[in-house]
């Protein structure tokens, strides 16, 4: 059977678990909701239902104290974010302690409050779309919990009063049986409650109402949320991701084992707009987003890997500068990027890029040596970072294969200087590489010889790239469990010579080293490649799994053509040629599916919803509010023609309206008339009217139209007189059920006298006689007098009937 308190216990348990889950969605650690869920389940079964384990108040207080003190030990050593997380964890632990106590109204309310406080912290930290949906569920649980707690408090009050009354009654009985029973005659009055109805039957209504209230609250909160004016930027949560989790890294280590897992965690969103257009577009080919470059292949701690540079001197000669402004140019594509909060200052874009929006708070700086864009310093806030740039190497919706080289050491358009070349040609020593680099050189020369013109660096570079792409012996993989390595060899050599399996780092490392062995300066580029385009939201959703490494090879002025310079793919100083040596049959190469599946569509919708959530809920700031809501929507709503246009557009879709508007109007009027007539005759309205006219019962439709017909269907009006005498009929029925049958010539009093006589010496006889007296007096008063029974008289009768009914249950029936 449904028990209100049991439902409340489940509700509170769910509140605790969902609250803990909301916190975990922000930081990705699911230990707490598992702990909370286990504790809730334990509490529901062993504490609440079976009562095998109950923490007493003292023990609970001690435990709560311990739970509260431990996090405080190093609380002030943490940063703000960690402090908030610590507080949220503390609140969850306190809830767990309360779950183990015996539940009273006070405990339920404390659990509720702690959960709300903890959700406040979770909302302040980070709340993405999944969290938002779960939040709506949490609110529903809160509302139903509050309703149930109110019912439980009322119920407890009634029960407590009944217990007190029972004690008082026992005292009275003891007094009566004591030595001075007369004392009871002066005892204070006591009262007992009668629980009139079981609330169980209303449980479904209460829970349905909780759902209605939730929807109304969401509507109200939405209105309030968008009405309140924002003042500047908003704090969008501080769950900052470490770059190592993102997939992007500014250093590479080769030789790992095991499986490398991919994550679909979002990193950024990218939108591309052609000049003069406000509609985003999708590229025809894949999208490369550069982050930073890696130049130096060295051994560190016994592992071979790539680092940005080993030439500190070089870096000290190169000064970062601001991006050039766009000025009056029109041959660009606008790129809008929203980057998730990050600790590192790297930004992602294509090159060449020019500045559109420079923000004082996060100033961009451009490193011409590495052609990378970054912030001047670590981001000041944990906000999502948005920046718009103009990129120059997208033409006809395709990203160019190369982009112009800009000499960082010279303001004149000079080719790459030797010191930079030497770094980009650097190979590890034979000792470092264990004397196996010769294999790379040999292989490179072999592959170069197979190209059309081994002296054409561009063709050689493209040829080597194509060789990696088309040679079926090479296989892309993230699973190194079955890859047999030769640890005596350099990992790149081992890759090329033996297993030929690996991911982008191996392929790109191999290509760089092969190019360098041929005297072609080359470097690794780390960034993102091939994100899926969200057709609904019209943006590229870049995720961690899209992190990629590719190659840039330097083409000298003699390696490029004038056509390339004219197109903007090169400069007189040369060009950087982009090479992506991934096997064509690998998954990473299969992008831009022109026939998206249902799952893809669903994914797109989800991504779009996430974008809306990020922009218009979590990230709603003054600017966006003004532009999108106040100016955008309000202008439309206030515009007169908007409504007319909307109405015409809607009406034109209805065939009847389209073909014969006059008939449509007649149909609408006819339907309205039927509705009005129906409302006039509706029982609900009749009930209201009949109440005003002091009718005892409302008239149905049928009674109003044809009372005779209504009687045929058993719908009869009940008159006041019938109701008055009805109590006597009820008494007769009661007595009849107990075997007392009135004979025809018997008057009421004679009948009651015969009943009294039949009772003999039954101890309840006086009481029954008293009830019958009252009933008889009132019956005669009602039957033979001119006035109606007063309220007091009616009350006397009802009480007497109730008393009689009770007494007849204990009196044996007449024979």
């Amino acid at each position, binding site marked *: 059977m449904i028990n209100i308190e049991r439902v409340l216990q489940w509700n509170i348990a769910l509140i605790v678990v969902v609250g803990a889950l909301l916190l975990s969605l922000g930081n990705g650690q699911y230990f707490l909701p598992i702990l909370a869920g286990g504790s809730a389940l334990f509490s529901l079964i062993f504490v609440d239902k079976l009562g095998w384990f109950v923490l007493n108040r003292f023990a609970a207080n001690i435990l709560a104290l311990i739970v509260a003190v431990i996090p405080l030990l190093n609380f002030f050593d943490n940063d703000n974010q960690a402090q908030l997380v610590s507080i949220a964890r503390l609140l969850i632990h306190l809830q767990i302690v309360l779950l183990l106590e015996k539940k009273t109204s006070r405990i339920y309310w404390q659990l509720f409050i702690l959960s709300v406080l903890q959700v406040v912290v979770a909302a302040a930290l980070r709340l993405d779309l999944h969290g938002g949906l779960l939040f709506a569920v949490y609110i529903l649980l809160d509302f139903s919990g509050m309703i149930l707690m109110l019912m439980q408090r*009322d119920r407890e009050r009634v029960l407590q009063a009944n217990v007190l009354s029972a004690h008082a009654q026992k005292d009275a009985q003891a007094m009566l049986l004591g030595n001075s029973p007369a004392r009871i005659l002066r005892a204070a009055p006591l009262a007992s409650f009668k629980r009139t109805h079981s609330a169980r039957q209303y449980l479904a*209504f209460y829970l349905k109402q909780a759902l209605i209230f939730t929807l109304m609250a969401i509507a109200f*909160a939405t209105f309030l949320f968008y009405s309140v004016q924002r003042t500047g930027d908003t704090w969008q949560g501080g769950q900052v991701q470490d770059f190592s989790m993102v997939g992007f890294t500014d250093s590479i280590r080769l030789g790992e084992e095991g499986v490398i897992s991919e994550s679909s965690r979002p990193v950024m969103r990218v939108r591309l707009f052609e000049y003069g257009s406000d509609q985003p577009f999708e590229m025809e080919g894949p999208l490369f987003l550069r982050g930073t470059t890696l130049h130096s292949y060295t051994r560190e701690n016994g592992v071979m890997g790539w680092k940005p540079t080993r030439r500190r001197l070089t870096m000290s000669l190169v000064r970062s500068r601001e991006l050039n402004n766009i000025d009056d140019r029109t041959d660009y594509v606008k790129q809008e990027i929203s980057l998730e909060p990050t600790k590192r200052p790297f930004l992602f874009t294509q090159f060449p890029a020019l500045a559109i929006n420079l923000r004082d708070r996060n100033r961009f700086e451009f490193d011409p040596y590495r052609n990378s864009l970054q912030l001047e310093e670590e981001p000041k806030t944990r906000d999502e970072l948005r920046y718009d740039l103009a990129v120059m190497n997208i033409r006809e919706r395709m990203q160019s294969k190369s982009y112009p080289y800009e000499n960082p050491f010279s303001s004149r358009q000079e080719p790459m200087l030797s010191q930079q070349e030497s770094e980009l040609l650097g190979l590890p020593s034979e000792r470092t590489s264990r004397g196996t680099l010769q294999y790379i050189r040999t292989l490179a020369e072999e592959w170069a010889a197979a190209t059309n013109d081994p002296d054409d660096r561009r063709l050689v570079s493209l040829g080597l790239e194509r060789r990696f792409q088309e040679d079926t012996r090479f296989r892309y993989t993230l699973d190194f469990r079955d890859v047999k390595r030769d640890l005596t060899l350099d990992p790149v050599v081992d890759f090329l010579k033996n297993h030929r399996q690996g991911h982008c780092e191996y392929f790109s490392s191999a290509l760089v080293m092969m190019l360098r062995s041929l005297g072609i300066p080359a470097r690794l580029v780390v960034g993102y490649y091939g994100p899926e385009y969200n057709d609904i939201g019209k943006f590229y959703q870049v995720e961690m799994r899209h992190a990629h490494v590719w190659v840039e090879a330097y083409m000298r002025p003699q390696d490029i053509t004038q056509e390339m310079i004219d197109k903007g793919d090169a400069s007189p100083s040369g060009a950087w040629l982009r090479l992506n040596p991934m096997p064509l049959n690998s998954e990473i190469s299969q992008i831009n599916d022109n026939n998206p599946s249902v799952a893809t569509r669903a994914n797109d919708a989800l991504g779009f919803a996430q974008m809306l959530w990020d922009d218009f809920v979590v990230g709603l700031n003054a600017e966006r509010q003004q532009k999108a809501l106040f100016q955008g929507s309000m202008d439309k709503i206030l515009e007169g023609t908007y409504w007319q246009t909307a109405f015409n557009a809607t009406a034109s879709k209805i065939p009847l309206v389209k073909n014969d508007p006059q008939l449509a109007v007649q149909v609408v009027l006819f339907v309205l008339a039927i509705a009005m007539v129906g409302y006039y005759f509706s029982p*609900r309205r009749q009930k209201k009217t009949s109440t005003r006219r002091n009718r005892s019962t409302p008239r149905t439709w049928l009674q109003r139209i044809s009372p005779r017909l209504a009687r045929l269907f058993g719908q009869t009006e009940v008159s006041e007189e019938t109701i008055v005498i009805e109590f006597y009929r009820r008494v007769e029925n009661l007595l009849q059920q107990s075997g007392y049958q009135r004979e025809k010539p018997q008057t009421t009093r004679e009948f009651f006298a015969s009943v009294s006589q039949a009772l003999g010496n039954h101890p309840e006889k006086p009481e029954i006689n008293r009830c019958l007296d009252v009933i008889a007096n009132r019956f005669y008063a009602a039957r033979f007098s001119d006035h109606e029974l007063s309220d007091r008289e009616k009350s006397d009768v009802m009480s007497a009937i109730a008393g009689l009914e009770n007494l007849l249950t204990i009196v044996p029936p007449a024979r």
Partner: protein
Amino acid sequence: MGRSQRVSVTREGWYYLFILAFIVGGAVMRQINPLFALAGLMIAPILFNWRFSMASLRHIDFSRRLPHRIAAGEPLVVDLELTNELARLDAWQVCITDDVRWQGTTRSRSHEVEVLVPGIAAGGHVRTSYRCQLYRRGRYHIGPTQVRCSYPFGLISIRSKKQITSHLLVSPRMGFLQRNWRRLIHKQRSGDQSSRQRKGSTDGDFYSLRQYRNGDSRRWIHWRTSAKLGELMVQQFDESTDQHVAIFVDLWEPEELTAADLDAVELAASFAATAAVDLCRGNSGKLTFSVSGETPFFHTGAASKPLLNTLLDHLATARSSSRSHPFKHGFQAANFGMQGTTLLLVSTRPPEILETILRSESTSTVPGPNIPDRLHRISVLDPEFAHWFSISNNPMVTQSLEDKGSANAQKKPATVG
């Protein structure tokens, strides 16, 4: 009926508001959007609670029904009816608190009775009731009634006071008449008198109507009712029997009251009420009651329900007095000089004082011969009283009182005639 509504924040509501203030403060100061949303979601329940409860209570009509009088110790059932006049909105978790207040000479004490009604449908009504046990006789005021609603969230409480007051008389508690009483009344009934007064068929009180039968006198046809019903109806009268009982209840109190004195007054009232019920049950004979005290009362008539009601109404509020005179209304010689009238005096005075008063009473008001001898008198303070009346049916108490009585009987001569 007056209504006034009062809005208050419950304890839980204050906690809730505190947290809400914290959230709003955080949202505004740090411009944290999720907290704005959470604040909106938390403001909504307060508004809903306030408006919902207000709307529910404003349209709830309330009425109370209870009997005019009950006996002390008897369960009192108070029926409540609540009507929801709103056509579209149900009312939920409505608490009705009735104030039950005893109206005594001392400062009135009140007791609150709370009834919870889970739901009243829109346009509907609910009948509910609560049960009370009132052990003290007297007049009670029930009301005003407070109707309270905190639905749905228990954050805001709306209270409405309905100035509907009902009055209830609680007559003395019924006890158990013991063997001395039974002997007294049984002796009278068993024909110990030498003569019986015959009464005509016209004597007595009207108590019923019935259909006309052959042989009924046309004088007793009730024409008005006959016209109404379309058939002849005759009145029936109550025929009196021969038993005449006169009971004098002397509610006396000393100048300095003790608990025992108060108990004695209550016992005397209970005995009188129980005796009256016993005598009126049989509906035979004439009954005279004289109650002296603060407000003397005298009534005589056929032992009937109306007389019983009148007597119980008076006994409900009868007060003792130090100036009480047992024979305030005196013996009416014409009535009580006749043989066959049983006279009983119940007094709260100590037995020795009672005897003194009886002996010193002037015989000028008692013209009949041997009346003092025929007068059965008993003091409530006398242990012998336990043989007349007991408030409880506890055999142990009865036995101990009998033992006391027999012990006293060895010391004093019997006072019962």
